[in-house]
């Protein structure tokens, strides 16, 4: 018995040891590793379903939707995952076919990549991305798939919000578009990040880009508790999505339509026209009422992902690069519309406001003669008439005189550069700061700019001065270019007399965007304050509560006294009745609404003239500034002015139509949006929020092509730099090309009699 007792003691020790081991291990598992295992438990036990927030609408000033939503549930198949499964995933497809009500054969066909002998319905996109097999799944189908993922490996169902554009092409560049968010962008976002799936969208351009944070809202989360078979057994956590705010803009959908139509007609009437822009501003406030650019495109192409070919088409010359907003990125010499700046420069240089000036047929600038339009002298006149009749020689002389005062070719240490500085005070040469991305700066060619330009181009110029242009067929042209290259090589850093004369009438190297011109005129005809225009007016919660008003910042002041301003405005008010635009406005009921404005015709070497009309109405107390630009449109009076007239007729109802703005002025109160998302008041919206399954094109495999670099070939250095500065935008090559065409051979137009910078009568 003693032996047995001893062995029992040994056993007792063993038992105690076993108990101790179990206890220690339990401590380790439950207390030390507890938190880690809690996380893993949550992972295995729950399925997180991201509930995307409804993106806010973009509304016009009356609450009419410019962009609204349609949501659709898209069921996709991960083909690469599926073919690795037993029987190549056929059992999964069989189950899916029960849920979707599609034959298995059809599903198989849809996920087979197209190729030789494989015809539609086949998959045209990348085989490595989820292939949509059902674009209009209903909620029940989607939930069946999402909540039983174990039974549907490789199958996903996601809600995609498809943007819808009630206005079609109208304002497409301004509204912008959505593209799949990149992982880097998603990482920057706050909140739920589990959402990355390649179908989350982000505003890539236009208002969608600038107001993305507000429009997007916050995604919600539904964490479903599942059992080990993946069957949902309860909702563990539910965070409702917060819908994005609606953006109310100051755009008036009808005026926008009018502007687009007017541009279309203008381009039709000017056969060589390759682009056009119209800007309608409210001068007192700096709000944008319409911003149109031609050629346009239907932004619906972005919905559900754009194909690579579709995207390349939007960037191609054949379609006229419709992604580029000519209003923001079209940089053109402003021609005579620029004279408002030049008159101001004269005043600031000390020329009397009420003086009398001689307008000869030509003036000598340095050793060259600069001519009036058709070389006609108009005799003595005051500045008022000089603007109305668009006399060039008065401005040539003033520009040249100021150049001489600054020291001419041997500049003083601190030249005043009155003309360039005044132009900058008018807001030219820098972006207006509008709430749109990628705006161009334009260009004010002052002495510094010349130097910088020369620093960049002298190398090429000097090489060309030696080698010449053997590739140019026309011998005299090649000879001319060689001479020019030599000139640029030797003294390209100097602002020459001809440059100053060209500058005074908005020719040569001066480049402005239609938007810059419009806001300069808006300042001129209102209170003299230069504003950074705004399209966004307010953000409003879906229930109609105001989130914030978007203010229009004042960024500068025109260097003009009130008296001088009114003098210039008064002069411009006579242009459509007595001046260069009289023809375009013949028959216009000026007794009802008087229009003021200035035409501009800017020469572009080797191309048709750029047609400009910058205007305002009613002339006495303007509510509208309308600037129209038609690239290669010919004379300002013959193309741009009639387009502006068409816009005015539409606004005030002088054509057959009802007035777009019956009050004769822009909407001044924010629209009241009721809780159900409709606009309160008698105005019926063109359609309330469209919910429920909508159409969305099959997603194609080319997401992420959000900003491919466009070819830089053919751009001058300066233009490239500009493009880089604009950064976010990629599609501005269109106008860039135009600009490059001129700057590359920039010297050609100045200072030679042949290519002389005379301005065709504005």
């Amino acid at each position, binding site marked *: 018995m003693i032996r047995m007792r001893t062995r029992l003691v040994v*056993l007792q020790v063993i038992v105690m040891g*076993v108990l101790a081991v179990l206890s220690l291990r*339990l401590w380790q598992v439950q207390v030390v590793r*507890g938190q880690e295992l809690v996380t893993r438990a949550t992972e295995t036990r729950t399925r997180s379903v991201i509930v995307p927030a409804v993106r806010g609408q973009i509304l016009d000033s009356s609450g009419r939707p410019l962009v609204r939503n349609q949501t659709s549930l898209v069921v996709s198949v991960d083909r690469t995952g599926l073919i690795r499964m037993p029987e190549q995933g056929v059992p999964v497809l069989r189950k899916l076919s029960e849920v979707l009500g599609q034959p298995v054969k059809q599903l198989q066909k849809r996920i087979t990549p197209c190729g030789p002998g494989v015809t539609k319905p086949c998959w045209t996109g990348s085989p490595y991305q989820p292939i949509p097999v059902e674009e209009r799944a209903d909620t029940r189908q989607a939930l069946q798939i999402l909540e039983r993922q174990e039974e549907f490996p490789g199958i996903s169902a996601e809600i995609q919000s498809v943007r819808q554009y009630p206005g079609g092409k109208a304002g497409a560049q301004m509204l912008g578009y959505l593209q799949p968010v990149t992982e880097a962008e998603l990482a920057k976002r706050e909140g739920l990040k589990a959402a990355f799936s390649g179908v989350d969208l982000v505003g890539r351009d236009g208002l969608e880009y600038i107001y993305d944070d507000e429009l997007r809202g916050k995604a919600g989360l539904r964490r479903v508790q599942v059992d080990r078979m993946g069957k949902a057994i309860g909702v563990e956590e539910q965070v409702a999505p917060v819908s994005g705010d609606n953006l109310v803009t100051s755009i008036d959908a009808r005026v926008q339509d009018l502007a687009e139509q007017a541009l279309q007609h203008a381009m039709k009437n000017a056969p060589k026209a390759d682009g056009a822009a119209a800007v309608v501003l409210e001068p007192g406030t700096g709000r944008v009422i319409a911003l149109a650019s031609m050629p346009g495109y239907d932004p619906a192409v972005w919905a559900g992902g754009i194909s690579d070919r579709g995207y390349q088409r939007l960037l191609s010359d054949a379609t006229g690069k419709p992604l580029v907003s000519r209003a923001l990125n079209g940089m053109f010499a402003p021609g005579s519309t620029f004279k408002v700046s030049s008159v101001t420069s004269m005043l600031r240089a000390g020329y009397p406001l009420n003086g009398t000036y001689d307008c000869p047929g030509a003036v000598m600038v340095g050793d060259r003669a600069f001519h009036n339009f058709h070389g006609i002298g108009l005799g003595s006149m005051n500045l008022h008439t000089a603007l109305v009749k668009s006399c060039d020689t008065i401005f040539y002389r003033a520009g040249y005189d100021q150049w001489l005062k600054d020291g001419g070719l041997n500049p003083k240490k601190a030249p005043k550069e009155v003309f360039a500085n005044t132009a900058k005070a008018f807001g030219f040469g820098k972006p207006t700061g509008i709430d749109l991305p990628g705006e161009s700066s334009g260009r004010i060619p002052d002495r510094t700019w010349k130097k910088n330009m020369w620093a960049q181009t002298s190398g090429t110029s000097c090489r060309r001065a030696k080698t010449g242009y053997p590739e140019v067929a026309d011998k005299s042209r090649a000879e001319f270019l060689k001479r020019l290259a030599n000139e640029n090589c030797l003294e390209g850093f100097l602002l020459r007399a001809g440059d100053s004369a060209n500058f005074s009438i908005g020719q040569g190297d001066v480049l402005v965007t239609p938007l810059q011109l419009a806001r300069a005129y808006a300042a001129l005809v209102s209170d003299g304050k230069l504003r950074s225009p705004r399209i966004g007016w307010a953000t409003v919660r879906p229930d109609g509560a105001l989130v914030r008003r978007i203010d229009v910042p004042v960024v500068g002041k025109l260097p003009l006294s009130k008296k001088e301003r009114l003098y210039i405005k008064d002069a411009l008010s006579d242009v459509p009745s007595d001046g260069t635009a009289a023809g375009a406005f013949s028959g216009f009921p000026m007794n009802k609404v008087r229009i003021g404005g200035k035409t501009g015709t800017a020469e572009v070497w080797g191309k048709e003239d750029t047609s400009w009309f910058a205007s305002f109405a009613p002339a006495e107390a303007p509510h509208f500034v309308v600037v129209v630009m038609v690239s290669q449109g010919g004379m300002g009076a013959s193309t741009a002015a009639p387009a502006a007239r068409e816009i005015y007729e539409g606004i005030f109802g002088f054509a057959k139509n009802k007035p777009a703005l019956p009050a004769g002025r822009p909407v001044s109160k924010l629209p009241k949006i009721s809780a159900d998302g409709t606009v309160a008041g008698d105005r019926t919206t063109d359609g309330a929020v469209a919910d429920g399954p909508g159409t969305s094109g099959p997603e194609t495999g080319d997401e992420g092509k959000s900003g491919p670099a466009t070819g830089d070939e053919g751009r001058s250095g300066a233009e490239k730099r500009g493009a880089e500065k604009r950064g976010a935008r990629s599609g501005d090559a269109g106008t860039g090309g135009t600009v490059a065409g001129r700057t590359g051979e920039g010297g050609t137009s100045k200072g030679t009699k042949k290519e002389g910078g005379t301005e065709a009568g504005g």
Partner: protein
Amino acid sequence: MMDRTLMGGRRSFARRAVGAQSAMWRLDGVMLVAVAALCVIGTLLVWSSTRTWAPGSTGLVKKHVLNLAIGTLLCAAVTVIDHRAMRAYAPLAFLLSLVGLGLVITPLGATINGSHSWILLGGGFAVQPSEFAKLGLLLIIAMLLAQPGEGSDRPRGLDVWLALFAALLTMGLVMLQPDLGTTLVLAVITAAGLVIAGVRKRWIILLALIAGVGVFCVFAFGMLEPYQVARFTAFLDPRVDPRGVGYNSTQSLIAIGSGQLFGKGLFDGGQTTGRFVPEQHTDFIFTVAGEEFGFLGSLTVVLLLGVVLVRGLRIARLCEDRFGTLVAGTIVCWLAFQTFVNIGMTIGIMPITGLPLPFVSYGGTATFANLISIGLLQSIRIREQSFN
């Protein structure tokens, strides 16, 4: 000796009158309380783990309570029987258990959950003879080894051979089912009997070597089912196949760990409700305790089992006859082994074997066998004085 017998004989009438009461006094109350607590906890855990799918949500827990009630009656009955009388019935018990195991192999046997170890009784009831075989083997080994050789306190060689023969016979029948877990328990019972009985160390070492070679042969000649090999591989590295064989150990570790210190509360264990751990009302019931009662709760279960084991060893020590000591000692080893393997596999320190947790897991026959063993211990306790 004579005196006592005479006295006993004289007082036999009186003894019977007060015996029940005095026996009650000698019962190991601490152990009974611990066992009762384990049974209550087990009932709650079975309820928690079956309420989402069992018929009428309480179907299985009701059955479990019924099993416990039957088990308690069996326990009481065994307690009343003098264990020394049981020594006489040991061969019968052993034979009956062999017959039971034999019946499993005949067409009467049934396969439940992949193991062919059941005899259906009809009415939804089934018995698992291998559970009773543990008791049968235990008793026959104790009986054989309780008789020391002449002038020695070690068992006789013949008895040892007989014990080994009985063990191999039982284990062989169980292996035919096949049921690796129970086979291991039977081996542990045999080894415990030999060790406690005082068999020479060199014999024990020799037997251990033979067992080792046997295990090697089992592996080497493919006598194990592939799933058993896989389980073992998965135990060595659960990451081998986390969705397959490693799934059980991974999921049970997650369930237990996520209980942390205080647990999620009864019925609030998400892993339990989601049935991520398979067999969580039977073999993996400890995961429910771990998740819902946390470290404190699961430690309580371990300690309660510890109390049972330690009190059992105390009974073995206090018992004055070899048979009682052997029975009590082997019972403790059996329960300790099953406790360690069962809890160990849920917390990743043992490979997965289909052994229930004593007094806690759902399962009629196992509950009966466990409670009978408690009855045996109590029976030994109240008659610990040797009257030989």
